[in-house]
């Protein structure tokens, strides 16, 4: 009985130590990456390429996600609010729900799936095919060349994507509201903007920037440390998406808490 308890405690201890070690490695990676973000050189060509990859090429998937989310949101809120005769709040709740919460979170998750996985696969392949070692031998810091452009592009482009998602999501709600639920077009638009505050949009954009950083960081970190050929790259890709998604949801709560009383 004592031996079983000891083994159980030892297993918990091993898991805890492994978790702490992984957290430490990620922290060191993040600190190193941030220090390179604020020191020259920055590669503008690579930064532009990543901004296009993260921002422009994510527009279709983000737009589709936003429009359907806005449409569903309008239907569900109508369904709920009609139970206590508050149908007039549909437009307001749709816009606040999208700008504060669903726009940034769903955009972050979609970009994590699309871009984070691609980053991990690309950097992971570069690691296992010695391309990252080759960068070093060619007097180029891999952090500056691979990680920094992705981190900056992620933190800059996610807010823009979320802004687009906000607009498209509200439009989706508007379409359902006016075409299906019978709202008057002008009054729906009035209700949308009447109670919308600057902080609703700003808090969403702050979240978006944090989520963009997380997506890029978790795309780069597992890829940079991948080992063992194709299997290692596959594992890095899975880790990138899963860890980015969990961190986005955790960060979402923390940032929401920060903005809660504002």
């Amino acid at each position, binding site marked *: 009985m004592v031996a079983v308890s000891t083994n159980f405690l030892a297993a918990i201890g091993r898991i805890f130590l492994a978790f702490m070690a992984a957290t430490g490695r990620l922290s060191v990676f993040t600190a190193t990456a941030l220090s390179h973000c604020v020191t020259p050189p920055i590669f503008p060509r690579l930064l532009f390429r990543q901004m296009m990859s993260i921002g422009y090429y994510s527009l279709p998937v983000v737009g589709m996600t936003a429009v359907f989310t806005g449409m569903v949101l309008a239907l569900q809120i109508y369904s709920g609010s009609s139970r206590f005769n508050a149908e007039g709040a549909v437009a307001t709740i749709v816009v606040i729900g999208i700008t504060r919460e669903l726009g940034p979170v769903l955009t972050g998750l979609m970009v994590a799936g699309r871009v984070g996985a691609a980053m991990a696969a*690309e950097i992971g*392949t*570069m690691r296992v*095919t*010695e*391309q990252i*070692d*080759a960068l*070093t*031998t*060619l*007097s*180029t*810091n891999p952090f500056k*060349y691979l990680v920094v452009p992705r981190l900056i592009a992620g933190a800059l482009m996610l807010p823009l994507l979320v802004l687009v998602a906000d607009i498209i999501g509200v439009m989706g709600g508007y379409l359902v509201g006016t075409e299906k639920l019978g709202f008057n077009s002008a009054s729906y638009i009035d209700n949308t903007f009447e109670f919308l505050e600057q902080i609703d949009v700003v808090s969403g954009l702050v979240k978006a920037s944090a989520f963009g950083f997380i997506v890029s960081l978790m795309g780069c970190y597992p890829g940079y440390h991948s080992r063992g050929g194709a299997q290692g790259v596959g594992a890095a890709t899975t880790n990138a998406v899963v860890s980015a998604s969990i961190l986005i949801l955790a960060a979402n709560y923390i940032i929401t808490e920060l903005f809660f009383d504002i």
Partner: protein
Amino acid sequence: MSTQNPAKIVMRDVHKSFGPKVVLDGLDLEVGQGESVVVIGGSGTGKSVMLKCVLGLLHPEQGSIKVDGEEVVGMRGKERDRVLEKFGMLFQSAALFDSLKVWENVAFGLIQGRGMSRDDAKGVALTKMAQVGLGEDVGELSPAELSGGMQKRVGLARAIATEPEIIFFDEPTTGLDPIMGDVINDLIVDCVQELGASTLSITHDMASARKIADRIAMIYKGKIIWAGPTEEVDHSGNAHVDQFIFGRAEGPIQMEVLRP
């Protein structure tokens, strides 16, 4: 393990382990100025790890590595970058950057490392590509469109593009047919002679070793167990070396093979 020439690279008592696995176990080796040293040895004996320790890609736990008399173990940041400018390297898999065109790969060290303009660097890259027998049209291709032999040539062009003082060749003929292997060997000899560079190569291809080496050293269990001029390798008097160069299954080097 020493050389007659002034030493370009000196490794002394270098130790490197990965967990419980000891890979380098007190390795000593020198590469002289303008000398071509080839380290031979079986898979997993520490050849690649040795190169990576010199380049700072791996950090030895113990020992000294000097480049031009300067200790590089523990060197970081700008100091490390300055030393790395002396090096060129041809990787086993060529390690070409997939996202760049062939000429951009060759010009990479000039553009990113030396700050040369893209136009000037392209000119140099095309010259180096011509030196290894690749035409201008190849420059616009992506690395994925090239055969293994052509990728090695591009890797060689990239390694010599910055005209480094020291060039490392990591199994330069692995994966190539014998004719293409010999072509690569000839290119290595020509390019190195033209540059006057010191080279350190690792291989288990004896034809390649005989062709490009001034001196051959054999690594076994993380140590250099024999080193001498290329012409003496057939009369080394070392049973390990004899077994390796003649490719015998029987001998002091025992492979861990499970037999039914």
